[in-house]
């Protein structure tokens, strides 16, 4: 019932929205954005990942997520994990494929796990954020 109302509303909006955009656009590519009336299907939210801790399968904290890299089409393809504390160093950022991190729940909170070892993290290539370019570079 509710869902149907939303679909109708978003259809109505969709029919409605192109008009002001068309009227306003002197340039061809300025389309006025209408917020979504329904959310797309999603599995997770960045707030459950960004700056959150990641544990190994034995519940030992490996590090926390310092950043997430995504491409122009919106696909997240890597996660920067600071494993400095785990290795007993100040800071060490390593890159992990996003699909390698599993999200579950523990005590009603998100719980991120990564199956890796101290040895692998120690050997892994470290990255550093370059403020001037806004990019992560290998150290």
């Amino acid at each position, binding site marked *: 019932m509710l869902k149907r109302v939303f679909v109708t509303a978003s259809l109505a909006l969709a029919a409605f929205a192109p008009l002001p955009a068309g009227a306003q656009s002197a340039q061809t590519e300025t389309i006025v954005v209408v917020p979504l009336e329904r959310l797309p299907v999603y599995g997770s939210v*960045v707030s459950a990942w960004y700056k959150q801790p990641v544990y190994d399968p034995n519940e030992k904290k490996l590090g926390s997520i310092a950043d997430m890299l995504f491409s*122009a089409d919106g696909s997240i393809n890597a996660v920067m994990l600071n494993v400095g504390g785990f290795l007993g160093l100040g800071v060490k950022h390593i890159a*992990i494929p996003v699909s390698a991190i599993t999200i579950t729940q523990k005590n009603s909170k998100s719980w991120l796990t990564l199956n890796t070892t101290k040895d692998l993290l120690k*050997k892994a290539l470290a990255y550093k954020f370059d403020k001037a370019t806004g990019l*992560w570079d290998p150290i």
Partner: protein
Amino acid sequence: MNRTLLVALSFCMAIAVAHPVRAETAAPDSKVVVPMEALPRYGSLVSAWYKKPVYDLNDKKVGVITDMLFSGGEINAVMLDVGGFLGIGAKHVAIPANDITVTEKNNKTWLTINTTKDIVKKATGYKYDAAEHAWKVK
């Protein structure tokens, strides 16, 4: 030159690592993850978006990104708190991720959206449900 070295290194690592992975896996799903030796191509960073302001085309602040929704590793919507812009406490509206443009201004990331006060005022508001870890229609 540097890049060639990296690629070569990552191949070596891949070969070196393949064996311990196979040796360790008792359960079929527990694959030991090796960190990446080269970064994939990427256009932007969550750190440049999350909790950052978004402006309209006249440099007026429309709101702040409070969350990003993703599915199968793909960001498909951004939650924008437009409360300040509307002069109310908080109102979260959902924006398709590709409707936000990222550029630079004074050496910093500058996010823009082409929308109007009227449109965000009429838009559906969402609220985060902490128990369900999901955004719900308010």
